[in-house]
């Protein structure tokens, strides 16, 4: 009995009947997932709970198999307590904390069972930490029986940063255990940005749904809007016209370009290398303005819509975009190459904040940060959807897993995204840009994956008998990767924290939702 024979498999955005997802005993569920995840032949893309009765929670486990582009679905039922999966499948750790917080179930012997978003349980009277209904839950205040990770000793000191940080950035809490400048561990606590989006998606889609998708993580508007629209189209058994698929892919790559350029500049700024900091700060605006030219919003809001895109790119606009992108490509390459030829910059980046391949795989660190450690996963290749089925972008990886690698992978991706855009803008397939969607299929489960600029964005929807959302799960790439930042600070200098943080540049609100 293997997962390949037992789990149901599907492709990116192709839904299957909920009733077809096998519900297996807990031990089998764990063993079947372990079979794929431990040898790293698959990635754990989602592990979430849906209430299935007064005391029962149905836990779905979804994995993505790069070699076959398949997504496997499996489920098991748990009661109030169950033996934690994390000891066996380390990638489950953060997902299990979310399960505990959202549904009040206790994964027994979880190595670090603490809240991740600091909100009340969705089931009244069921709280994993025994908090009473209506009890005030304060972010960063540890529930009874838990505490921040602490190291004892005379010369140990604890440094606390946040929620409000020195720069213009979202809030989060970082707790360092230090000995002088040396950091032993970093613990990260989030939840400050929790806006309660997931709950509001139930019963939808409605007139706010699209806007939630565009603001769940504001610099990933295209990424999440695309994951949502792809999912809806799958649920309605319709594809967006090819022209729309091409425009969507180009918008996604523009989003990637803007963010990578901004990050390379910000990294340079944190090192104190002002030329690249200044240039990239501006060039990021050039990429954003390209998106703004297409749809009126620098962040791509209003562009991706169910059934296609709301704005077309005619020939004059395509020529203008090509002209601008060619110039921006030259500029960002010139600005970034200064970094690699500066020994003082390289000295700060190399061997700083290293996350080994083994750690990246064990903790499920995906996306660009994972690729920098050699964890070779990219949705555009592993589960291609939309235009990426026809126009492939080579996957960019590096092997050192340090801050340099995370910078260099961004540089490589900038090159490849520019090439993709310059190649495809002159040849956008002739077609409409939008198609009407029919009704959504009832009683199905659909999974949509997009390689957003940080990594895989995963949206899962279960529909009810009317085709409305009975359940909706959003997993931003940052959900997987915050632990990567925490690991990267071990045995580092505390003064390298801003650099390491920028080298990941994770989304606080994408995690908190």
């Amino acid at each position: 009995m293997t997962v390949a024979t037992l789990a149901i498999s599907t492709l990116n955005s192709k839904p299957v009947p909920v009733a077809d997802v096998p519900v297996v005993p807990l031990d089998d569920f764990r063993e079947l997932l372990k079979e794929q995840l431990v040898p790293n032949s698959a990635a754990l893309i989602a592990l979430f709970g849906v209430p299935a009765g007064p005391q029962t929670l149905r836990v779905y486990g979804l994995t993505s198999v790069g070699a076959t582009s398949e997504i496997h679905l499996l489920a098991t039922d748990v009661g109030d307590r169950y033996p934690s999966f994390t000891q066996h499948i380390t990638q489950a750790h953060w997902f299990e904390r979310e399960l505990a917080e959202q549904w009040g179930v206790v994964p027994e012997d979880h190595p670090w069972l603490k809240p991740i978003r600091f909100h009340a349980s969705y089931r009244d009277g069921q709280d994993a930490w025994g908090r009473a209904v209506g009890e005030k839950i304060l972010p960063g205040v540890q529930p009874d029986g838990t505490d921040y990770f602490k190291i004892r000793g005379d010369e140990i000191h604890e440094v606390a940063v946040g929620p409000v940080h020195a720069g213009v950035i979202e809030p989060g809490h970082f707790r360092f255990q230090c000995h002088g400048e040396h950091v032993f561990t970093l613990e990260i606590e989030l939840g400050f940005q929790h806006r309660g989006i997931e709950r509001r998606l139930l019963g939808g889609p409605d007139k706010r749904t699209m806007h939630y998708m565009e603001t769940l993580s504001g610099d990933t508007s295209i990424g999440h809007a695309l994951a949502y629209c792809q999912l809806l189209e799958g649920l309605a058994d319709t594809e967006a016209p090819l022209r729309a698929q091409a425009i969507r892919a180009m918008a996604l790559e523009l989003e990637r370009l803007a963010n990578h350029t901004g990050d390379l500049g910000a990294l340079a700024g944190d090192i104190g290398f002002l030329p690249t900091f200044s240039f990239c700060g501006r060039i990021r605006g050039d990429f954003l303005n390209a998106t703004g030219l297409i749809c009126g919003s620098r962040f791509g809001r209003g562009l991706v819509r169910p059934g296609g895109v709301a704005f077309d790119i005619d020939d004059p606009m395509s020529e203008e975009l090509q002209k601008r992108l060619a110039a921006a490509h030259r500029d960002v390459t010139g600005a970034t190459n200064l970094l690699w030829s500066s020994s003082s910059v390289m000295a700060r980046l190399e061997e700083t904040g290293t996350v080994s391949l083994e750690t990246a795989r064990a903790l499920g660190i995906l996306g660009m940060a994972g690729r920098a450690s050699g964890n070779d996963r990219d949705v555009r290749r592993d589960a291609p959807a939309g235009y990426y089925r026809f126009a492939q972008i080579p996957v960019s990886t590096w092997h050192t897993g340090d801050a340099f690698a995370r910078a260099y992978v961004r540089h490589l991706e900038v090159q490849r995204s520019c090439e993709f855009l310059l190649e495809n803008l002159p040849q956008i397939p002739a077609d409409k840009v939008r198609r009407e969607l029919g009704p959504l299929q009832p009683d199905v489960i659909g999974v949509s994956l997009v390689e957003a600029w940080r990594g895989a964005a995963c949206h899962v929807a279960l529909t009810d008998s009317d085709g409305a959302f009975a359940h909706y799960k959003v997993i931003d790439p940052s959900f997987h990767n915050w632990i990567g930042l925490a690991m990267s600070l071990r045995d580092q200098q505390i003064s390298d924290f801003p650099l390491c943080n920028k080298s990941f540049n994770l989304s606080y609100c994408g995690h908190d939702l």
Partner: protein
Amino acid sequence: MLNILNERIKQGYRTIPFPAGEMPKLPERYRGMPVIDSTKCPNGCAKCAEACPTDAITFDSEMKVDLGRCLFCTDCTDACPEGAIEYTQDFRLAARDREDLITDGKAFELAAAVEEKSRKIFGRSLQLRQVSAGGCSACEADINVLGTVIFDLGRFGIHLVASPRHADGLIVTGPVTKNMKLALEKAYAAIPSPKFVIAVGACAISGGPFVDHAEQQNGCDSVVPVDMYILGCPPHPLTILDGLLRFLGRIENQ
């Protein structure tokens, strides 16, 4: 070193002359100040109100638009059968009072400068502390970009500072999540008087797309007193810059 100088020459000088010179031209599809020509509305039609995700448009005895709730999206313009709603190219979207943002569909009165006394203190040196209280990072990014060479906030004497204790005022984004309420209050309390607050973006003004979620406060004016509101989702950097300069009296009402 030479390669750095060489690159600097290639990158060129990019700072825009704004507010001097001609008004910057934004892309044709840019959605600036919305205006509604209610003479075009068919009798009894309320399609825009039904389509608006944040219920910014209401029809009671008359039509009212609460621009503090506007996400600058295309839902109302798409729904209107007569083209009565239009987004102009006007990027000037700052107001001093929350009530100014509730209009009958026409453009609202732009922010006037702070009074003479504050202008004497802040006019040439304004230190701002940014607090993101649930913001999605788009408003934050477009505030941050003001420090880059195109806009060069520093040439106006305006700086973003690391601590509220160094600041003259707060620039707040986000709807104010329950989890950030205390941090926002503390940041405000830590600023020495005289001080002020600028709310940037639909979330900070009214809760934005999250209006009426239990997890947030519908904007920051329930938590701190707000002196200026800058609209957008997110506001274009020029909109934010225009607002800041108006606040300091560096731009007269045009």
